């Protein structure tokens, strides 16, 4: 695999990564590069706050389309804060379960619609 230039999170989104919409934009770029066979580096230098909602949109949703072993082998997240790593670990664990366990996914989606209708 070849390595593309690191994606500088602070440069792309500022010091607070809060919006899932920004995460979705990032996800599209990362997904495309991983599926094209590149290594991807997300550099979090200069980032102060990372929302779990951003991480889920940016990285959690990769598990829908990109095989787990490809992500594990070819995605890096240097300089992510400790709390960011903690949040990312939770997001990744939830995503793996969500996208690999159809019964769990149905249950979550069903509860989501109930919640939204409440």
């Amino acid at each position: 695999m070849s390595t593309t230039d690191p994606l500088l999170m602070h440069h792309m989104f500022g010091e607070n990564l809060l919006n899932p919409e920004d995460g979705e934009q990032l996800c599209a770029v990362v997904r495309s590069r991983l599926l094209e066979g590149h290594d991807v580096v997300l550099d979090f230098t200069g980032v102060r706050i990372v929302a779990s909602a951003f991480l889920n949109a940016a990285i959690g949703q990769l598990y829908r389309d990109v095989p787990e072993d490809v992500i594990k082998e070819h995605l890096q997240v240097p300089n992510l804060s400790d709390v960011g790593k903690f949040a990312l670990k939770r997001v990744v664990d939830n995503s793996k379960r969500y996208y690999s366990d159809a019964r769990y996914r149905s249950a979550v989606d069903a509860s989501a619609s109930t919640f939204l209708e409440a």
Partner: protein
Amino acid sequence: MAVSLRVPTSNHDPRTYERFFKLYADAMAAADRDSAIELDFTGCIFLHQHAVAFLGGLIRTLQDRGCTIGARLKSINPTVQQNLKKNGFMKAMGLQQVAGGRNTIPFREDAARDDTSYLGYLRDAWLGRGWVNVTDRVADAIANAVWETYTNAFEHGQSKVGVFSCGQFYPTNKEIALAFVDFGMGIPSSVRTVTEASGLGDGEAIDWAFARGNTSKPGNRGVGLDILRSFVELNRGYMDVVSHRGHLRISETGAQTLIRNHGFPGTVFNITFKADERRYGFKSEIDAEGIF
């Protein structure tokens, strides 16, 4: 003539929440029969941050129901009144205001979610006052963990009147505290929308919401409660989360789930950190190589 409601005093006893939930129930019952309500502070000798945030939200809830709220100013203990002036509560409620106090973290109400402003509140008004002996990086970590839960209050809570916050620095114990309260559907109601959790009681539902991997949000989001709980536990803080009749209490002796005699429909978060703690973080838990 207005219906008079007695505002209780607050303390560190966990039953303090019940007294305010009883006030909520009395206030809702009063609002059913009268549109004029007067708050009587006789006997109230202290109001902690969670009591101030709760009282602010209660007043807005009553106003949202069309009630007119007054206060018997002469009944307010001078120390309580001074504190309510310093933290901006009196101004927010349309009463008098003096300059901010040395140890107070302002009362704040967010009718709608405002991420950037709330992060500024956490960093500047709460953590940036020179009380906390931590680096900017650690202050950001605390702000990150607390902010996640603030966003949860909007996404889960569906509070018609928003989220109410207030804080306090306690110099004797070297502790900084922050409380935020929403008047929405509460954690148990949100959790019970999940099929596997639909039969849980109030206490069990709060436990479920704070357990790793559980979320009632769409699209696999909502790890904020887990993050905050872990952060508080790892850094030897204290936290009370009270919703309906369920009460999760985290302290140095561990986590306890309690059932209160009185509940209320929303959620109270009351979080305290040691201001002289030097080792904040998640390092003991995270293995950077093992994330994916």
